[in-house]
């Protein structure tokens, strides 16, 4: 194996700067996408548990649709096809004036895709709460909306902290797909360094370390939150 090692290249400008900006983009895209995924996913997840056929059907359709199409295809559709499908005025704005078109598309794509996965976790959390609790809430005179607001949703969240951590890490890893539409995240920068310097080994090692370190930090932090959020007596399952 003939290879010219040069680890110093990672700390030279402009390559070091590229990596730093890559980390910034990865974190920004993941964080905003997570906000969408969490709120939309909670909504869809709750919708899958309510006692109304049409609402449940719509929520189920959402989950199945987003879960059964590869993320890469969804990424291309958000970036290339959606601006063509929306009304003309909005489409023109998306193509011309929307700030950071690549990152915005990537965020919408990751957010809506992960929402379908979060929804499944939220549903599982709510369904694992014994039925008697809902009955008790209703017997105390709470409306069904209040039962969800004060009982099912908050308890459900606390049950699913571990799988939600996995989902956040998934969004963080999946944000690498944003490079296919031109977002300058970590992996894109590593590839660019390889293309410019032929130091692929160093560049990909840097990207690998960044992913592993961020994962370790998140796992460590969530471990502590998980301990505080745990409700004694409720089984906690770790999702994939």
């Amino acid at each position, binding site marked *: 194996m003939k290879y010219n090692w040069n680890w110093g290249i990672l700390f030279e400008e402009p390559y070091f700067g590229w990596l730093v900006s890559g980390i910034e983009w990865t974190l920004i895209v993941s964080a905003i996408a997570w906000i969408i995924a969490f709120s939309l996913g909670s909504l869809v997840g709750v919708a899958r548990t309510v006692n109304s056929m049409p609402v449940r059907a719509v929520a189920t359709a959402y989950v199945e649709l987003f879960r*059964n199409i590869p993320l890469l295809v969804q990424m291309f559709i958000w970036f290339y096809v959606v601006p*063509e499908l929306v009304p003309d005025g909005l*489409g023109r704005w998306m193509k011309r004036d929307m700030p950071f078109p690549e990152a915005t598309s990537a965020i919408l794509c990751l957010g809506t895709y992960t929402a379908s996965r979060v929804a499944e976790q939220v549903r599982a959390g709510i369904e694992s709460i014994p039925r008697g609790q809902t009955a008790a809430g209703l017997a105390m005179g709470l409306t069904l909306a209040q039962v969800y607001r004060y009982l099912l949703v908050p308890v459900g969240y606390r049950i699913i902290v571990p799988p939600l951590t996995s989902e956040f890490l998934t969004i963080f890893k999946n944000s690498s797909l944003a490079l296919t539409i031109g977002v300058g995240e970590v992996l894109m920068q590593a590839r660019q360094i390889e293309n410019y310097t032929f130091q692929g080994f160093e560049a990909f090692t840097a990207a690998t370390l960044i992913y592993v370190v961020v994962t370790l930090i998140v796992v460590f932090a969530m471990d502590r939150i998980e301990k505080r959020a745990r409700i004694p007596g409720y089984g906690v399952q770790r999702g*994939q």
Partner: protein
Amino acid sequence: MGAFDFGAITRALPYLWDGMQLSLLLTGLSAAGSIVLGTILALMRLSGIKPLQWIGATWVNFFRSLPLLLVIFWFYFLVPLIAQRQVDAFQSALVGFVLFEAAYYCEIMRSGIQSISRGQAWAGYALGLRYSQTMRFIVLPQAFRNMLPVLLTQTIILFQDTSLVFVVGLADFMTSAVTVAQRDGRLMELYIFAAAVYFLMCYGASLYVKFLQKKMHQ
């Protein structure tokens, strides 16, 4: 926005079919390879031998903390360097997929093996079978059977993941769709068609998994 041009799709169908065959071949080979490797890793994790357990656990945790895209790039870059010759993208992608997906299949097989009661293995030993025989004839067949729906679900995910070989230019279904889309300037038609095809295949397969689960619980 022009009208939806179905002709753009029908004209490209033979080319897209070639791509789909490659996608399916890559999925099949990767699934077979990573189920075997994943089972070995699961046996290592359950072996009770510290160094083996450590290797298994590190493998799983390491690959699960990385994006698949990074792993594909790694092997696209690394395999030719190690082999000291030109290696086509299919082989390097296959290596990457097997090593990466093995981490996920390992966890499935591990819970499958753990779902078999210990008495079964003891019965095997009492009959005079060796460890390898007990695993091969008693524990693993049952673990596979119990885990079949989950293994299939993971294979559906793997099938979706193969679309990522687009980044190394391997002509699978996704890459073929993108090629035609850009050549003919028909992005909307081809991407929506690709989404529809993937959806029908994956949704169909997931319905079969549900049916299988029901049948097993009877």
